[in-house]
């Protein structure tokens, strides 16, 4: 019975979440393209946004790349490079911790702003509030998992031996839920929460992260448009 639960959680749910991410992104970009905006509220409140937004964005981008490295690069690769496990973990903890705390500090300021500033709160949609809380929770869980468990409660636990392996298995559709059974609870919650965020990502304001205006760097300053002739 426990296995069925774990199977659903670690072999089915991730695909539901990621499927929803891909499906939603396609739908949003084909039929609801015009609704994709950064949903800025800077017009309504500026001071708290300055610190909060910069801290959060810088933090979360570092955290994202940290996750990519931690999950996608196998332990065998760093072993082959000759990096000892201890050094790798200290490096990951320090850099990840700094990035995580930047994101957390930013998110705390942004949440305070969203719920306390009248103009911002009244113009927030339900999904804005959900996104706000979800990020707050996932960042706290992530810090609790890597710093709390990683240093104090389960220092012997090495996520690169099970969690990362399972995550990579997801990409070739052979996830083994037994690997996840060895993972401490905070990690599990962090993963579930993270997958949830991916699941509702394209349906919320978060979608702006997928529309980086890279072509701005290459185009000429003045843009002219001509109506197509028939």
């Amino acid at each position, binding site marked *: 019975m426990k296995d069925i639960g774990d199977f659903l959680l670690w072999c089915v749910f991730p695909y539901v979440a990621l499927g929803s991410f891909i499906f939603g992104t396609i739908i949003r970009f084909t039929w609801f*393209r*015009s*609704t*994709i*905006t*950064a*949903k*800025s*509220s*800077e*017009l*309504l*409140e*500026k001071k708290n*946004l*300055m610190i909060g*937004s*910069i801290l959060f*964005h*810088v933090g979360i981008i570092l955290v994202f790349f940290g996750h990519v490295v931690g999950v996608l690069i196998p332990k065998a690769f760093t072993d082959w490079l000759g990096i000892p496990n201890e050094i790798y973990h200290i490096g990951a903890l320090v850099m990840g911790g700094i990035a995580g705390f930047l994101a957390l500090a930013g998110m705390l300021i942004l949440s305070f702003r969203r719920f306390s500033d*009248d*103009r911002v709160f*009244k*113009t927030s949609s339900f999904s804005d509030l959900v996104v706000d809380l979800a990020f707050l929770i996932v960042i706290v869980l992530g810090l609790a998992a890597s710093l709390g468990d990683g240093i104090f409660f389960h220092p012997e636990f090495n996520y690169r031996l099970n969690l990362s392996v399972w995550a990579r298995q997801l990409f070739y559709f052979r996830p083994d839920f037994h690997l996840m059974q060895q993972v401490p609870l905070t990690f599990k919650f962090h993963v579930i929460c993270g997958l949830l965020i991916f699941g509702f990502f394209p349906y919320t304001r978060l979608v*702006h992260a997928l*529309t980086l*205006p890279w*072509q*701005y*760097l290459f*185009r000429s*300053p*003045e*843009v*002219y*448009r*001509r*109506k*197509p*002739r*028939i």
Partner: protein
Amino acid sequence: MKVKAQISMVLNLDKCIGCHTCSVTCKQTWTNRPGAEYMWFNNVETRPGVGYPQKWEDESHYKGGWKLNRKGKLELRAGSKLNKVSLAKIFYNPDMPNMDDYYEPWTYDYQTLFGKESKHQPVARAKSQITGKYMKLNNGPNWDDDLAGSDRSFGEDPNMQSIEADIKGNFEKTFMMYLPRLCEHCLNAACVASCPSGAMYKRDEDGIVLVDQERCRGWRFCMTGCPYKKVYFNWKTNKAEKCTFCYPRIEEGLPTVCSETCVGRIRYIGVILYDADRVQEACEEPDDTKLYEAQLGLFLDPNDPEVIEQALADGVDMETIKCAQRSPIYKMAVEQKIAFPLHPEYRTMPMVWYVPPLSPIMNYFEGKNSIKYPELIFPAIEEMRIPVEYLANLLAGGNTEVIKNALYKLAMMRLYMRAKTSGKDFDTEKLDRVDLTEESATSLYRLLAIAKYDDRFVIPKAKKEKIEHVEDDQGGLGYEECNGCALAPAHGSMLRKAKAGMSSKDIYAESFYGGIWRD
């Protein structure tokens, strides 16, 4: 040479009475929607004053427009592309105006006026249209209307900073003028250059600058980029909106709503041909005071056969060229040089130009024996109530010479016409001194004072039917995607009542009283 056509406007400030009809009709047409309450595509400012948004001309604060970098090349004052990426400005735009720089939109709590009888006179208190809470009003769309010369409006007007202290000191002789403002539809638009998404563009056929609502991602750099602060951010749709130059009307050969409804008939719309290849060169003129002339140099003579040939080759149609030949803009800006761009020193090459006002000087001067000694206007203009330096800061990047010449010309034209209509003698050689002849003075008078509809508005039709499937646009509402832009929500209750069998007369009686829409 690459010839392009540009729809542009001239406003004769001499005749603006500051009635705000243009602003109100514009608002009714374009921005009476949720999220757009604070947007005034057109507004009328009292000068001297702080304007709207407050102190918009203070570019050391708002960082709008262009500047020349150390190499003498054009660069957005708000920062180059690299600067925007490297300084994390994409996460937070430090130079963007805040809602308080405009004002928090409000309505009034009218319900209290209809409540139970009470001991005290009921008062409709102001209620924020954003938070729904009662609010204290301390700023509005036209907060210093007609208050020119008050401590705040005078001291904080950026155009006054560089004027000598003694002129400031003379402020018992206060002056006032009106400045109606709309999007300048610049040739070198800073908002277009700022937009990371490429949503802002200039229309190739008439140069109107628009925001593509489909592609706008709400990065807000256009708001900073525009030195005139004429791009607004809709807090409900999270997208930028701006003056459209009423392009659906322009395409039909009709003037914009602000021009059509202007009671003073101060607005002129026409098309002008310019050389797109030389725009950058003109914008990089190092001397601020010469930018006006640099821009003037871009405009092409629509009667020159070489220009016509090149224009046709570059895709300008014959009707547009014909309209350019009759263009009131060309006449005032290029031939007579009495119209000037607003703040050419922002280097955007704005295309809404202004004829400087003359009224106060003429009142001062006309009591004297002016027709007999018309040359007296030359010293008189130096002592004008509205300092020439002020007008020059506003309209010519500080170049007082060109403003003075325009004022001389306008004053001389008036004296000539006064002599003519009252049957007095006038030494027509005096007209030479201001580059006028009897004929051109009369024609200028007709254009400025009589201002016939057909003389004011010479607008070529877009010939859309030859360009796109016009039936696709049928029934379009413009801002369809945004919630509350359609009229259905506003009229839904009426439709329901009609369905329930109420007669239109009853519905009217219930919905309107005294011709005013009930809240």
